[in-house]
């Protein structure tokens, strides 16, 4: 083995970082890319199938209802506020504020998930009626799995904060949880426009 020549000492470097300085942020970004791309492919397939029909939605299928999806979209947009404040509190390492805002986030995220059930039925078609129904259900269904995962992550994190004193690293993870929520909500906007609003203008 070649003899080693020390050139610098890393002991003074931080052991917890936030945002793009942390590995978890990059990992989260990686999975966001994969999931976002999957949704893009599903939407492309949805539009590809559109070409097979004269009318869209086909065969006298009613348009998707807008009431529940619009209410839920509004809720989602509002939810960004506590999620953003949680991330800010996490960046300040303010345990009390993080706990408080995480609880509030949990409270606002739950109805979003519950409303999703009616949002699926607001498509006004079943997955096994036409290819249009299959595509619409799959897109919304896949997004639901992302939503569910993120809500579970938020609940788990909140639970951890209350069960025991968390290492500072968890604050960075909390900020990344917020980052993932922005993605989940952000990617929903085009889905809402294409799947729920689109058939009315197509």
């Amino acid at each position, binding site marked *: 083995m070649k003899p080693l020549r020390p050139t*610098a000492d890393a*002991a003074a470097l931080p052991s*917890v970082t936030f945002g793009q300085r942390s590995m978890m942020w990059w990992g989260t970004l990686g999975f966001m890319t994969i999931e976002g791309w999957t949704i893009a492919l599903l939407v492309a397939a949805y539009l590809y199938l559109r070409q097979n029909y004269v009318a869209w939605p086909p065969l006298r299928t009613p348009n998707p209802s807008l009431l529940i999806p619009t209410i839920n979209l509004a809720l989602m947009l509002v939810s960004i506020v506590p999620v953003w404040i949680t991330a800010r509190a996490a960046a300040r390492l303010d345990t009390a504020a993080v706990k408080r805002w995480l609880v509030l986030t949990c409270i606002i995220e739950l109805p979003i998930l519950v409303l999703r059930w009616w949002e699926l039925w607001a498509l006004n078609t079943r997955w096994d009626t036409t290819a249009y129904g299959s595509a619409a259900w799959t897109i919304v269904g896949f997004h639901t799995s992302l939503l569910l995962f993120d809500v579970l992550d938020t609940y788990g994190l909140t639970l951890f904060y209350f069960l025991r004193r968390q290492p500072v690293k968890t604050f960075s993870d909390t900020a990344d949880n917020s980052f993932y929520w922005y993605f989940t909500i952000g990617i929903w906007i085009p889905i809402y426009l294409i799947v729920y609003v689109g058939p009315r203008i197509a």
Partner: protein
Amino acid sequence: MTPDRADRADGAPLPVVLTLSESELAGDAAALDAAWRDRPGLWGWLTAVDHKSIGRRYIITAFLMFLAGGIEAALMRAQLARPENTLLGPDRYNQIFTTHGTTMMFLFAVPMMTAMGLYFVPLMVGARTVAFPRLNAFGYWTYVVGVVFLYVSLFANTGPDAGWFAYVPLSGPQYSPGHRVDVWAQVVTFTEIAALCAAVNVIVTVFKMRAPGMSLNRIPLFVWAQLVVAFMIVFAMPAVATGSTLMLATDRAVNMHWFNPAEGGDALLWQHMFWFFGHPEVYIIFLPALGMITPIVETFCRRPVFGYTAIVMANITTAFFAFGLWVHHMFATPIPELGESLFTAASMVIAIPTGVQIFCWIATMWLGRARLTVPMLFVLGFIFTFVNGGITGVMLASVAFDKQAHDTFFVVAHLHYVLLGGGVMPLFGAFYFWFPKVTGRILNATLGKVHFWLFLIGVNVTFFPMHILGLEGMPRRVYTYLAPTGWGPLNLVASIGAVTIALSVLVFLINAIRSWTHGEPAGENPWDSSGLEWAVPSPPPSYNFLHSPVVRSRHPLWDTDVELPVVTGLRTDRKEVLITSTFDAMPDSRHSSPEPSIWPAYLALCMGVVFIGSIFSPYYVLGGLGLSMIGLFGWGWQSSKRIESELVAVPNGAMVERA
């Protein structure tokens, strides 16, 4: 070494420790090993997170799959050796050729290439492990679930039988009742999840864990290839995962209509989804193999590779073009003429970056002093075989020719020249090259040469006649043919070639097993190679590097004179890794790395319940998801364990110490 001052709250450079005594070094090694070693015994095996343990297992499992796929190939060649043979009936033959393709593409080639990355990338970039060791273990176990599922199904006479690309409507619910195609769809899901986990791991490892000083223009070319391929996986794998899990499986299980034309579905949509993945897949196998060639050529020609930047650009260009040619698999379908022209052009253009790489290696050999060691022989075998396969690829890019050769043995010949020449030959070369690093012993060179010549001859004798058979009109995927076709003699030649390949692989196996236990000890750097992986003992210790190496050139071991510059100061009493900035690789922070964990294996099993269960009932899906809640909680709980003190860089730039 000047650290990035902007990264420090006080703006001061990092302090320098001028000397380390021998005893300090030895003490560090013992402490580091205690912190990094996986636990002993069966539990230790199940909970292992060391990237080398996982990488080694991955490589061995994928190689076993190569043998399984090889046995299936041998069975097919035995069946086709003479006309109207009765060794395999049509039903068995369908299962065998489908399982052969599925195994070789999904369970051997892609996992093997990613596994080589998961083992070597951290060593080559000077890191102690991968970015997400538990995710790495989870990926491996998920892959194992897929392997077991496919082979249990095959032996239960439920092996998939609709071809490795499972075209609808044949693979749809109407024409493939039963569960054979479901098995295929879910095996694909497992291998996709595993590949995506590996890709994210490789990307973040390369972005954030490179040795200080390893700026983008100093990254080893194997690592570049792995990075580019990781990005390709991120964009290619979701297409087939979507196609197989969210479309084909749902059409079959819950009566969706993605591919049912009677309800507005579209059979060609499947081909688009599949080949949007399937064509990049070829390059996902091929680019890492090319990445293996560069260090071999550099080492045995004793000079830096000619055209480093050109090779990096060729990798990136290939990756871009790879996503623009999937339709050339669909020339026999009614696609617009303009589309055909575009995809023909793209299919021809992609030969250019590959040609650039080959010319760079030839120039390196020309300018250096080439030694014909076994790895070099495989590189030369690669150039010969792959170029042949590449040329028939350019032929097939022409629509007029493609329509004649479509679904004939000509295509079989082409794809095997490309994959065996472009994937397996460099891989064998890489085995001879890096076996000493992994095992500490050198593979026997005489047996290696026997292996090489038998393999080269076997590949050409097996697959060259298939070009002619294809031009004579022999379709692929037929379990037999009649004597008057006149295809008998060439098929017999091909089958003799297959025996030769089998013999060559047998020689390799004997060599590997014998050398692993009795081979010549390798030492740290038996080939006098230049990469960082050769700066550590063979096999590498659990913590890889005693201290994080500092890199000042593309060839750290050739360009440092006597001493290897290192960064000290990482904890030795627990797992800690050095994080560097994304572009310039300046030291930025220290992160803790996870302890061994059972949750990755547990969660992979839960995924097994979800996806295998989904074939039978949605309740298994719910049950599996419920069980995985426990796993996710356990995983998170393990991550949130307190450590005694943390030095925190909060986003506003301040540094806070938290006890």
